[in-house]
């Protein structure tokens, strides 16, 4: 395709979008920045404190606990969901009515309101009225997601796997479907084993979508709030308190606006960094894809 023409009037087309997003984004963000550098002792008395809040937040023990918890969680999420999602995509049928039916069933968990996800698992994991809880108990395991910290953590992980693996699977599935038949035919002719087909054809061709899946799952799990909140409320203790909940507790619960605002900005910048990486990666992918299309 020929080069895109330069047209500054295109700004008019963008204007509605800018207005909507700016209204929702810039104004609040400015508020946050405002709060992060002030001590609001009362609505009338505000003192400029510079970076004091930032420093205090970084020293907060609760933050360290939540951050460490979060990193472990996001790491575990990736370790489980990426391979599982790929395996699921490989197992899903490629065409026919079975493909549509499987797609609907697999995608179902993505469309459940997040609090309902939490509720479903809250019920499911209880030992008195939940299928999983009762089954575990009958198997002799002293299972309790309210009392036992590691049980709670694992249950939250299991819930997230149940909830979000389909996203990875659907991305990988789309990547797989884009591989032309000729590659599989050539592999048959070359006498390649099933594993060789996976390693040399499928995996490389899925590289793009998988990278997106990795970055998306990392970022989304880094921001997770509702599901663990509904399931465990962050407990027992702070075993399942992750970063978003830490922030919400500070802002709404304790009404420590200053530190909360400061942490909001830090939180935001961490994710911004990952977003930058994602964006550049996708740009590179897009260019590589165009090259491949031309050759």
């Amino acid at each position, binding site marked *: 395709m020929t080069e895109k023409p330069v*047209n*500054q009037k295109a700004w008019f087309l963008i204007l509605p979008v800018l207005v909507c997003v700016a209204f929702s984004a810039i*104004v609040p963000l400015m508020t946050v920045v405002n709060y992060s550098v002030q001590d609001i002792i009362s609505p009338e008395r505000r003192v400029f404190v510079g970076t004091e809040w930032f420093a205090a937040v970084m020293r907060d023990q609760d933050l360290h606990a939540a951050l460490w918890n979060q990193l472990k969680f996001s790491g575990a999420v990736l370790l489980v969901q990426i391979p599982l999602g790929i*395996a699921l995509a490989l*197992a899903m049928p490629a065409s026919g009515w079975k493909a549509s039916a499987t*797609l609907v069933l697999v995608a179902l968990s993505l469309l459940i*309101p997040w609090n309902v996800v939490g509720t479903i698992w809250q019920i499911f994991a209880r030992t008195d009225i939940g299928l999983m809880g009762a089954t575990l108990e009958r198997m002799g395991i002293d299972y309790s997601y309210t009392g036992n910290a590691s049980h709670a953590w694992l249950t939250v992980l299991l819930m997230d796997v*149940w909830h979000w693996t389909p996203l990875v699977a659907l991305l990988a599935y789309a990547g797989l479907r884009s591989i032309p038949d000729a590659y599989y035919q050539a592999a048959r002719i070359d006498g390649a084993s099933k594993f060789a087909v996976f390693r040399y054809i499928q995996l490389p061709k899925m590289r793009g979508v998988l990278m997106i899946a990795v970055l998306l799952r990392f970022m989304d799990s880094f921001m997770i709030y509702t599901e663990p909140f509904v399931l465990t409320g962050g407990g027992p203790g702070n075993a399942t308190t992750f970063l978003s909940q830490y922030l919400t507790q500070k802002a709404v619960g304790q009404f420590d*606006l200053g530190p909360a605002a400061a942490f909001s900005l830090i939180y935001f910048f961490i994710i911004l960094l990952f977003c930058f990486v994602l964006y550049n990666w996708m740009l590179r992918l897009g260019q590589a894809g165009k090259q491949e299309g031309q050759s």
Partner: protein
Amino acid sequence: MTEKRFHKRSIFLIAYLIFALLPIYWMVNMSFKTNQEILSSFTLLPQEFTWANYKLIFTDESWYSGYINSMIYVAMNMVITITVALPAAYAFSRYRFLGDKHIFFWLLTNRMTPPAVFLLPFFQLYTTVGLMDTHIAVALAHLLFSVPLAVWILEGFMSGIPREIDETAYIDGYSFPRFFLTIFLPLIKAGVGVTAFFCFMFSWVELLLARTLTSVNAKPIAATMTRTVSASGMDWATLAAAGVLTIVPGAIVIWFVRNYIAKGFAMGRV
């Protein structure tokens, strides 16, 4: 040679589907029981099958209004999002202009922001503007996340349409609005479908902002569900029924766009 492979994969697929559907089945199961039965005995199928829970939700205004509220702001969000995203996506797809790459990136960053960061500012902003507890407030708040996504997805689909089509239309004397509505839009049907799906998906499931910005009038179903504790203890049966009903719209939407889902994900833009 292929038989064994299919067998192993089918078994794995079925196992996963069971894993995926089990919790949902359990909730459906519970929604047809009475609270008594839930607490007293443990059964795989309701012994005393009852519609009472669903009846309650459909008749009690405090329950069904929750669904209606959710659907209202989700619909608002979808309409506004697609309306503003279409021209913007067209601009990004067809033209270069000052700051285009930077604006695109900035749009994406909004999708990537933790909603928790906006909690307090939104609360204050909407209170100041007097839009607290309205459907439009939630729809506007959700715009923050759905518009960038919509622009992103639509831009991808639009870039797949050769510019020659636009040029031919101009030569043939079409005005821009007419060209856009009668020629261009039908070509990117799939893209609009995918976008609508993701808008719906995000807005329907989001809780934090929806709950923060509403109290009574525009309270979404998600918030209603948290108030099922009464004097006699947790109202599990009604809760389960409410949960099941929240899945239904999602299932319907997936069914309608099932053929486009693969395409949408193929753009790698989720």
